[in-house]
């Protein structure tokens, strides 16, 4: 019995190596946060790449795609270490990733030292990655944190009639980008957000009592850019302390972890508008097909693909589409490949995507509102789709740069 097993294994191995002669393989590196607090999200990002690869049956232009993963813990140092191994040791000529903002900037900087290798973003959404000190071989087919807010500022100004908002956000680059993307159009229309009504809390903050006590009364609403447990903690504490100001949500604030949580804040968040690159319940057939595909391929995954799976999927699909167009030929150090990438325009589950001159995606953004679903659960209803949002939010490049890098105080908006 043992021998026959061995024999079978050996002949299988022989077969596999024989088939390797016919289909040459091409190494693609995938960087995601597989350790630490974002591990579940990184795992979902890799599911996105797998979905894109499945559409090509694992083979592009006759080359078998060999996916090699690199793991990070969301710190830029670990991202550079992971990508270095994929490029310098494993010899990957295409790298897809990373997941979080600061990692994206670090890999963009590293990409400048490897001009022969092509880097595509995963789901990282920091603004500077493709705005300042851009790299010729770093491409981002997913939209970023400020773009994700498209339409929200205008919506709450005209439809909801808010004129002054307070801000509660985590204290790092991604929420800064979101706050900027929300406030810029809001303030351009005449809204204000005083500096002393903006509160930045550390990531993972548990106690919001000091923030809640300091929230001014004379604002019309609170813009909340917190994620996961931070959002749940703030919302429940605010509701319990008797707060009744309406809310406006960031892209990861009104997600399933918040909508699905129990407690009295549940009724209170109904009607909260938010915006982001995906909308779970969008009834468009392209999105519905994507969700069905995800659910069938990954029964153990999330109930619906997260925006991380979505981001990785779009970037991976772009990588494979362009690879098909150059017939898998990267022998010129990928120069022709990158030319194709820069001009690529394709249909995604969330609409058409193409790049601007700094390799940043121009894509559609969803405006949503929390409603009560038919079975009593909360869900995000799609209010409108803002088509083809640019990174400069409709402004000229120079005009947009004049705002300066995103920070706690940007835009001033007094």
């Amino acid at each position, binding site marked *: 019995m043992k021998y026959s097993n061995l024999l079978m294994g050996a002949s299988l191995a022989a077969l596999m190596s024989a088939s390797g002669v016919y289909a040459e393989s091409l190494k693609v590196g995938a960087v995601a946060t597989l350790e630490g607090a974002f591990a579940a999200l990184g795992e979902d990002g890799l599911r996105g790449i797998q979905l894109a690869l499945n559409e090509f049956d694992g083979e592009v232009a006759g080359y078998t795609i060999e996916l090699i993963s690199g793991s990070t813990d969301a710190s830029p140092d670990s991202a550079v270490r992971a990508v270095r191994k994929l490029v310098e040791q494993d010899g990957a000529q295409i790298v897809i990733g990373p997941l979080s903002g600061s990692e994206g900037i670090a890999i963009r900087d590293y990409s400048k030292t490897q001009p022969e290798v092509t880097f595509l973003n995963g789901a990282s959404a920091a603004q500077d990655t493709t705005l300042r000190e851009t790299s010729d071989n770093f491409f981002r087919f997913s939209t970023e944190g400020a773009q994700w807010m498209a339409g929200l500022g205008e919506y709450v100004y005209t439809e909801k009639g808010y004129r002054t908002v307070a801000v509660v956000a985590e*204290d790092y680059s991604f929420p800064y980008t979101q706050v900027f993307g929300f406030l810029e159009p809001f303030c351009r229309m005449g809204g204000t957000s005083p500096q002393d009504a903006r509160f930045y809390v550390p990531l993972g903050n548990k106690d919001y009592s000091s923030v809640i006590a300091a929230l001014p009364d004379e604002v019309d609403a609170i813009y909340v850019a917190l994620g996961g447990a931070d959002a749940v903690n703030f919302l429940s504490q605010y509701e319990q302390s008797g707060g009744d100001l309406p809310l406006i949500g960031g892209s990861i604030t009104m997600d399933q972890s918040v909508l699905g949580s129990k407690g009295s804040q549940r009724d209170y968040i109904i009607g909260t508008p938010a915006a982001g690159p995906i909308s779970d319940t969008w009834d468009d057939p392209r999105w519905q097909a994507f969700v069905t595909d995800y659910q069938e391929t990954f029964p153990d995954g999330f109930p619906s693909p997260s925006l991380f799976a979505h981001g990785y999927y779009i970037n991976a699909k772009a990588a494979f589409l362009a690879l098909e167009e150059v017939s898998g030929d990267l022998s010129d150090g990928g120069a022709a490949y990158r030319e194709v990438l820069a001009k690529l325009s394709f249909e995604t589950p969330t609409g058409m995507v193409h790049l601007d001159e700094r390799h940043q995606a121009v894509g559609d953004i969803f405006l949503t509102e929390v409603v009560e679903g038919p079975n009593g659960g909360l869900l995000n209803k799609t209010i409108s789709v803002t088509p083809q949002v640019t990174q400069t939010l409709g402004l000229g490049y120079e005009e947009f740069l004049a705002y300066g890098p995103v920070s706690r105080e940007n835009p001033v908006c007094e």
Partner: protein
Amino acid sequence: MIAGVVKTISGVRPAWWVALVLLILFPFPANDFFTVQIGAYSMILGLIGLSLMILAGYGGMVSLAQLTAAGLAAYVVAIFGVNSNDVLGFGWSWWIVAPLAIAVGTLFSALVGLIAVRTSGIYMIMITLAIAVSVFFFARQNYEVFNGFTGYAGITAPHIAGVDMRAPLPFYYLSLIGAVFFLAVTAFVEGSPFGLALQATRDNPRRVAALGYSVTAIRVFAFALAGVVAATAGVLLVILNGRVSPGTIGVDVAIDILVIAVVGGLRHPVGPFLGALAFVLLENFAIDLIDRERFNTVIGAAFLLVIFFSPDGLLGLWQKLSDRIKPIQTPTKSEH
């Protein structure tokens, strides 16, 4: 002093010289990845581990703040050197910045020592952990000096005689010089009056005090010495990465350093370097050995096995192996 140095050098066993030559030749067969990310990076982590080994091995004092000393040195380089964040970045020359960074790291380590030396065992671990955590959170929330969550990026590497020190070969040799220098210094200090006094405070502090030594002074000086080692590693780290952020000095990384020192072995200064090499190899290649969802289990299991079979770490394992081989060889020799 000089006689002592000569004695130390002539006392070095031939095996060490062979190892040194191999290390010097290592970059030639290896690619850039192995040269920098395995070779040089192991030596940097090894240096921070050595800093802990000096305290724990000779002094019996486990400090979790040694990585913090290295991180502060890296921050000093970013603040007084050139960075691309438009925050501070005075653009001073490397000849001033590097010594300044080492001085700040040393001072910090000595201060940690001053606070912590009156405690021992688990209390010292807790105090130094508390210091490491507070510095981490302070760096993450302070924007005026530490530039908060983002930290500093775009830190330029020094050019010595026109050679970019971040290029793989020069950086490898820079790290090698640092590692060998501090390894030699530690070996020298071990046998020096100070080193013997330090080991005596580990074994019986009351007797040392009765002999007229100041136990506190000896321990604080050990912390300062460990600070020099850690801060040098911090400067190397910032040259390699070109960036420093609160994640660099996070608690999880500080625990990694402890793991490196313990797994390598605390009885000999070369232990932390062995531990660092094992750690870096596992960190980079465990993901290729097994499913990507489980690779951290492999890393943990490997370290558990080492500690289980050899409380003295990899060094102890080596000792056991060579002890086993020797008795077999000796009788075969006597037969002939």
